[in-house]
């Protein structure tokens, strides 16, 4: 599963980030394997998603959220 499939307000763990030019950018913003992640909000019409990652809220488009692999599913 990737971060696009998260249920709202449940806590998951990040397993990894798919290889992409955005990978380093995600990592430097604190999106790293082992971090906890939960989905807070979704903008309508498949707009951006807001995630809580280690105390920080990050808004990502679906394409970017799809790069985040989630553990245990």
């Amino acid at each position: 599963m990737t971060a696009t499939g998260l249920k709202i307000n449940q806590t998951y763990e990040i397993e990894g980030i798919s290889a992409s030019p955005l990978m380093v950018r995600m990592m430097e913003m604190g999106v790293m394997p082992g971090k906890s992640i939960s989905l807070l909000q979704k903008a309508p019409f498949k707009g951006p998603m807001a995630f809580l990652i280690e105390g920080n809220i990050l808004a990502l488009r679906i394409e970017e959220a799809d790069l985040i692999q989630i553990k245990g599913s």
Partner: protein
Amino acid sequence: MEVSEKKAVKSIAIIGNPNVGKSSIFNQLTGLNQKIGNYPGMTVDKMMGYFQIGNKSFELIDLPGTYSLYPKSEDEIIAQKVLNGIGMEKPDAALVVLDACNLERSLLLGTQVLDLGIPMAFVVNMKDLAEKRGLSIQTFALYKELGVPVVLTDARNNQGLEAVRDLLSNDDFAVGKPFYELGFAELLEEVRLKFSFETPYQAFQQLVFAGYDPMLDQERKQWLEDKARSHGFDSQVQQARETNQRFEKIKSTLSRTQSSGSGKPKKFHATLDKVLMHPVWGYVTFLGIMLLIFQAIFAWAEAPMDLIDGVFAALSGWVSDTLPPGVLTDLLSEGIITGIGGVVIFIPQIALLFGFLAVLEDTGYFSRVVFLMDRLMRPFGLHGKSIVPLISGMACAIPGIMATRNISNTKERLITILVTPWMSCSARLPVYIILIGLTVPDEAWMGINLQAFALLVMYLIGAAFTLLGAFALKFVLKSQEKSFLMTELPIYRMPRWQTVLLTMFNKSKIFVLEAGKVILAISIVLWVLASYGPSGEMEAIEAEEKAMLENVVGEQKFELTNEFASRKLEASYIGILGKAIEPAIRPLGYDWKIGIALLTSFAAREVFVATVATIYSVGENVEDELTIREKLDKQVHADTGEKVFTRATGFSLMVFYALAMQCMSTVAVVYRETKSWKWPVLQTIGMTIVAYLGALITYQIWS
């Protein structure tokens, strides 16, 4: 002399993550003593500030907020160049601002700067928030681990800044212990020697940045690429490896230097987000806030704008009355003073809009708007961040275009800049009102006032062309850059009024000093063209006017002056130009008089009304728009005897003003924001062609 002066001022670069309070510290230290400059070849502004501690002088360079020193946008390229002194003077030291609540993440950038080998110090900001979250940071332990001084601050509340000042004045900066273990020893040594760097990490950075630096010459770029290839150095892989290893080492360092609490934001923020980011209430709130801002801009900007208008008119009158009559006096009173007035008049709108935007940004609300609007803007090749420039465009395109700064994707920013002038700005309103009054009956149809409906249609035309234009440009403009959205939504905070006021001041200053030059130049050219004509014709008219004026009194005198003003404008260069373009604008339903108004109103759309009043000898500065309307209604074509301002001509003119550039200040500000003449020129030509075609079609439909 110069050398000793340079030594006397210590230059310090300040760098940190976005939203870390870097600008708070910058503002607290420098106050109003700020200067905006340029980095050669870059569009990002160079922010500098000056201050003294005791008898020591300091120069602070505010580097753009970034999460790392990897090449992603101009921001990082500038940070890398400044910190290594590439193509510019290297600062004496660096002040790296860290987020107390996100030490791990901010130390990624922090340790990168440390490895560059520049003398530095860490400022751990927002200690108040960290304390609330139960985090405690042991600065001394951190100092022992990293080898550079660490200072705790709460810059918003002006706490801990004394310690920063002490650090600066005692020159306590230190070169840290190398943090990251690099591979490729041989390759990095070669690069280090070639570029005469001090540390291997500088060489590593140069390799990573090689493909992105626009100022690097071709020979060196090629050399770096060849070297990287022959050593199997893949920039992407190396960046990922570096990030991973740095984070691992940072984590183990921090486990020894901080006791962690919950690290989670408070419930209050989550509740606020539930409303402000809600699929329905979020948009309702946003719309409400925007309406409020517009209301305020219209209501509050009007009085200072009228005042500025009055003061400059009085000044211009005073100069022409006091100084001996002549060309120079005319140039000063009608060309230069009026021109400067035309620049200053925008300050209230710019300052107000940026004041509001600074509040939205500083409270953290702005990134929520981006979250909400991104999906709606994307089909048009725009970014969530484009919404603010576009909405500002309804008041005035100038602050709107200046507000495109924070759109990081070049293509999305350019599209936003190019289409914002199509939003119906407040300068179009006087043109619409006169023309609607002339051509649309003041009647109700099914309870809707037709004139109000016509005005609404004009606003909709503007918005429709903005989106269509953006949509078309999406396919025309080519870009390798991938569009993405990765925005931090910071916690809500009270706005810092000092930051808000400084933003208002700085944005107004940029506009006056940089765009102002272009506006002044164009308005002087336009004034000369409108005031002078070839071969003594103008003098003949003036002599005739003088002779005739001596024989009349009272009301007649006023009408005679108006008539001669019209004849003078006709005889001027711009009058000749207006006649010259008549064949081209005849299909749009315009005569040469309207042609003259089209030319003079390139200065600003509202000038159309004044010029039309002059050329049809209604008299300049007629406040009463009814008089203008009545007079214009009586105008007939000299050759055919038909009415000039028919419905077809009126509509065609409105469409022309909706779509044409007709604003030299916008041209100037686009030049300033894109740092090239290419885009404003292309934009003006493109908009004029679209406006011409639009007006042509409108005229043909209605005539």
